[in-house]
């Protein structure tokens, strides 16, 4: 049994003989003794000397033990100063008064030394326990403050990275808690050089900084590649590889990625582990589910990763709705999940599409009465105007070494066509010419159109006429994937020629393919229009570039761009 540590004990007792006896007993047990003859003296002595424990007689003159106990407890504050009442009171009512006044125990008269020693020991153990609890509480509070501060700093850095995007575009509506980042929720959006929009809703495993820290490299990849003109598939491969490399084995990121194209009136979708998204077709009222067909990012090796996307037709008023699992997983008091059925009910009951978020939020509140802070939702529609572009990229060179008189030819053959997207590289090359930079959007759109035509209609022999309805759309992309997979021969050639002209210069782009060609005259007779659902996007090429022409029975397309040096 451990020896009792010496304590400073205050004895408040009005009977002189009893006080003397008790002091002697307590001193003999190894403690330091302070005495008081009434309640008021007891309180004063307590204030001055801060004893560890008090033996308090109940009935004393001037101030009784009850009042003295109340005052001493108040002075002690959070710390525990045990008060043992000395009493020959026997009625339980009187004993109850002792406890109400803050007493922790009683000692009956006549004093029994053994019992007194045992009580002092027990009370002291409680006293030290309380002291430890307070110490640890303060330590925890300090650590909590450190953590919060670290999160603030991380969030500030992340906001700089994340807000290089276009979440504020007019066709995007979203709902996210300000600290969603620390629940692993991530929402990114950016324009491609062609004016399409990439959107990503992600959900990292874990909470706090571990969940947030993966978001930064991921956002950098997303924004960097999107700005350069890479498509969803290349961006997905890069993001997956990066996360697989940098995240610990048990961490990953569920994500849904979208590419919305006003030009082709379509939305390309990749869902890895997220809840179903929904494509809401306004004309029919139908909500097409966009389920997860892939594993989340950061799990599979590059060889095993599946970057296949699904493409759906999308009309101008249609909307894509994505949500994080915070919505589905919201629990009520009985641990029932909100679930997909209730979400479907909200969809069904929703009369005004613009009020969808409010309807869902209300349904969640009614269900649980308490908001979760990992509920993220985003709704995207197709943007009418081609002009809505983000900030122009910032170039770091001065233009002294801008190449003004050169040509380059590339031939992409067979199996290369399956996986390699040369467009970002070709665009970067062209943007070395300063005069072309203001037209980077148009350049990319035209290049993409020419290349896509050459590959899909030329080499793969796909008929764009298939894309006139939803079934045809699906069939078209199925065939595209199948033919691409089976491709052995065939080529696409790209020729670029830049030469000075007057105060500026001229760029000629020619793209050739190994396909069967098409009836150029017939297509050219069609009126110019913006929609590229069928036809060969020829309108777009003719609108954005100059002197567009087709030769070699449609297998070779040529278009020019000009620029003037501003004075």
């Amino acid at each position, binding site marked *: 049994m451990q020896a009792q540590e010496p304590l400073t004990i205050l004895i408040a007792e009005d009977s002189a*003989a009893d006080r003397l006896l008790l002091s*002697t007993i307590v001193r003999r047990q190894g403690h330091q003794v302070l005495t008081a003859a009434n309640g008021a003296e007891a309180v004063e002595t307590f204030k001055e000397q801060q004893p560890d424990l008090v033996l308090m007689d109940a*009935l004393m003159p001037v101030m009784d033990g009850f009042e003295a106990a109340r005052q001493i407890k108040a002075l002690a504050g959070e710390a525990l100063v045990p008060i043992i009442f000395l009493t*020959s009171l026997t009625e339980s009512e009187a004993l109850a008064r002792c406890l109400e006044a803050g007493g922790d125990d009683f000692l009956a*008269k006549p004093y029994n030394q053994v019992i007194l020693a045992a009580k002092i020991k027990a009370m002291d153990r409680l006293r030290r326990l309380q002291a430890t609890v307070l110490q640890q509480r303060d330590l925890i509070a300090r650590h909590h403050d450190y953590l919060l501060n670290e999160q603030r700093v991380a969030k500030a850095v992340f906001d700089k990275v994340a807000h290089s995007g276009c979440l504020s575009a007019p066709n995007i509506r979203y709902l996210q808690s300000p600290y969603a980042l620390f629940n692993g929720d991530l929402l990114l959006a950016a324009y491609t050089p062609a004016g399409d929009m990439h959107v990503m809703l992600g959900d990292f495993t874990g909470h706090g900084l571990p969940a947030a820290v993966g978001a930064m490299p991921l956002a950098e990849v997303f924004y960097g590649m999107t700005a350069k003109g890479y498509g969803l598939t290349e961006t997905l491969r890069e993001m997956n590889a990066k996360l697989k490399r940098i995240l610990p084995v048990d961490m990953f990121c569920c994500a849904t990625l979208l590419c919305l194209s006003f030009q082709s009136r379509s939305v390309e979708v990749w869902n890895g582990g997220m809840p179903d998204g929904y494509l809401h077709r306004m004309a029919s009222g139908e909500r097409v589910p966009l389920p997860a067909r892939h594993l989340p990012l950061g799990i599979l090796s590059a060889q095993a990763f599946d970057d296949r996307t699904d493409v759906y037709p999308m009309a101008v008023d249609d909307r894509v709705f994505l949500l994080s699992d915070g919505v589905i997983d919201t629990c009520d008091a009985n641990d029932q999940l909100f679930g997909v059925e209730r979400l479907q009910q909200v969809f069904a009951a929703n009369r005004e599409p613009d009020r969808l978020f409010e309807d869902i939020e209300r349904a969640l509140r009614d269900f649980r009465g308490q908001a979760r802070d990992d509920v993220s939702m985003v709704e995207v529609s197709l943007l009418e105007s081609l002009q809505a572009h983000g900030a122009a990229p910032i170039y770091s060179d001065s233009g002294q070494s801008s190449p003004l008189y050169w040509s380059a030819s590339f031939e992409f053959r067979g199996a290369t066509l399956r996986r390699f997207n040369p467009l970002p590289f070709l665009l970067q090359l062209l943007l070395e010419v300063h005069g072309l930079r203001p037209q980077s959007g148009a350049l990319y759109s035209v290049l993409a159109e020419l290349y896509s035509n050459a590959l899909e209609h030329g080499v793969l022999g796909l008929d764009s006429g298939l894309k006139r309805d939803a079934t045809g759309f699906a069939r078209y992309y199925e065939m595209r994937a199948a033919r691409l997979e089976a491709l052995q021969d065939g080529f696409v050639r790209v020729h670029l020629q830049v030469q000075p002209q007057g105060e500026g210069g001229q760029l000629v782009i020619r793209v050739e393919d190994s396909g069967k060609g098409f009836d150029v005259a017939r297509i050219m007779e069609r009126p110019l229009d913006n929609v590229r659902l069928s036809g060969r996007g020829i309108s777009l090429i003719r609108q954005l570039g100059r002197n567009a022409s087709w030769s070699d029975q449609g297998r070779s397309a040529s278009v020019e761009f000009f620029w003037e040096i501003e004075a």
Partner: protein
Amino acid sequence: MTNPHVDREVLDTLREVMEDGYTELLETFLADSQSRLHELQDSTSVKVLSDVAHSFKGSASNMGAVRLAELCQDLESNAKDKSPEALAQLVADIHSEFAEVRPLYESEKHHAHIH
């Protein structure tokens, strides 16, 4: 021989605990008891009688004066119910009980010196 008025075992323990302070304890007890007896004599308030009896009871029991403690308990609990005559009788009983045990405590002081 067991004494019905004073528990000798209590005195033995007190002597052992107090050591050199035993005499001082006895003297303090005797002096306190005297003043308490005066208070009981002079007071007619039921509350005062009850409080003094309570206090006296405590000391008496600590000092092993069991019969004295019992009488004080009686006065403390029943002061409000007793008639003035009954109260006076009880106070007188306490006086005589103290007179009975006093010599024993006095002689204890001498024993302390001898030991």
